[in-house]
């Protein structure tokens, strides 16, 4: 009857800690509504993969040989093989995004670009802390504030910390309403936060909306060929949305398709959340660096807006620069709330949404640029 207690006898304290972490993720998803579509499957998956001799992982059984586990298989096929799941999710995300507020005020693109600075600053600090360069880059990409991009880049670079990076990226995205106000206040004065911005958007033609995803894909692809998969799939989803003749496909991509991919992606990521690779000091360091990435992103966006104000007659509220990260629409909402908190007649939402969607494009381009540059720098 030894087999009844076999699992209990080989359990490690690290696995028990991972059950706790899995439970915490499930709690945050249910009780705090923090990115529930991802944190809940990841949390439950973390418990499944940390049960001794878990059948969801590949096993070598005595007298039988190798047996495939479903979560290991999903990881190999869905992420390791060609980053299928994160890329397919981009189609759904692209179909969800309305680039209208950005197209109506295209200079907001530059705020999204500036807000990617946190990625590179974090890569620098992670390198200083002694992380292998590919791992440092993968940690820095947490600053994209974009879960699929973080996953894809860390997977392509074969980072040793994919699971940790995924958990930290999604957790901080959920914590944007706490992190960003502090970072924004650190680099703005009350007077700047009170600047009002009238909203007089330019009219955006259907032609512009249709041409936009095609043009972005070509330009990003020419500058950073490795970005074609990332940017191309995001823009493909957006083209489905904007073309006007694929309404049913667009709705499916936004809802059922994105939901199914998200569900499978969450449980698949948990393949990397094994106790032996997560219970270590590096996990704490990655959490600290991830926070740094979000703070630097936000500050860089705000400082870019302040730089613009040196030349503009009609001043920009620099807080909208802080929304240049990919966490949509949380970041835009943060700026709107902060604007109203300073002056109840200060409505910044549409400007912040424009910057926020520019951050979505810029983060994906940043991921592609990094994938193009890193091989040339470490050859």
């Amino acid at each position: 009857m030894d087999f009844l207690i076999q699992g209990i006898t080989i359990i490690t304290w690290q696995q028990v800690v991972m059950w706790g972490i899995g439970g915490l993720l499930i709690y945050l998803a249910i009780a705090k509504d923090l990115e529930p579509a991802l944190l809940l499957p990841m949390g439950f998956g973390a418990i499944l993969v940390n049960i001794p001799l878990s059948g969801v992982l590949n096993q070598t059984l005595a007298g039988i040989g190798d047996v495939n586990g479903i979560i290991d298989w999903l990881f190999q096929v869905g992420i390791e093989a060609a980053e299928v799941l994160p890329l397919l999710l981009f189609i759904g995300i692209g179909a969800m995004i309305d680039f209208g507020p950005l197209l109506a005020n295209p200079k907001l693109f530059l705020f999204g670009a500036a807000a990617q600075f946190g990625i590179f600053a974090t890569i620098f600090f992670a390198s200083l802390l002694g992380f292998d360069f590919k791992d440092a880059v993968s940690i820095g990409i947490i600053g994209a504030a974009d879960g699929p991009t973080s996953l894809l880049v860390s997977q392509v670079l074969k980072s040793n910390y994919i699971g940790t990076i995924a958990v930290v990226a999604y957790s901080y995205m959920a914590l944007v309403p706490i992190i960003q106000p502090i970072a924004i206040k650190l680099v703005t004065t009350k007077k700047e936060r009170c600047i009002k911005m009238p909203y007089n958007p330019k009219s955006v033609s259907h032609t512009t909306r249709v041409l936009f995803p095609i043009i972005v894909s070509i330009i990003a692809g020419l500058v950073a060929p490795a970005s074609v998969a990332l940017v191309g799939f995001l823009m493909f989803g957006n083209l489905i949305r904007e073309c006007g003749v694929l309404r049913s496909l667009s709705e499916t991509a936004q809802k059922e398709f994105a939901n199914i991919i998200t569900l499978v992606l969450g449980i698949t990521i948990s393949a990397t959340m094994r106790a032996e690779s997560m219970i270590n000091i590096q996990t704490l360091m990655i959490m600290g660096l991830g926070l740094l990435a979000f703070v630097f992103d936000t500050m860089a966006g705000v400082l870019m807006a302040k730089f613009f104000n040196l030349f503009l007659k009609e001043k920009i509220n620099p807080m909208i620069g802080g929304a240049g990260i990919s966490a949509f629409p949380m970041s835009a909402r943060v700026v709107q709330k902060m604007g109203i908190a300073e002056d109840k007649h200060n409505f910044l939402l549409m400007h912040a949404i424009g910057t926020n969607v520019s951050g979505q494009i810029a983060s994906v381009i940043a991921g592609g640029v990094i994938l193009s540059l890193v091989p040339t720098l470490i050859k």
Partner: protein
Amino acid sequence: MDMTNATIALILMGKGMAAIFVVAIIIYLIVTLLIKFTPSDVKEDK
């Protein structure tokens, strides 16, 4: 501290941010032209 990797990180920062801004500026210019030269879908009341 690994200064070699840190130096590479600084080079990546320079090249990466430059590339992102180049893409952003080109897109900005093209979108500005598109907005200017493509007719609006909104019909104005006469």
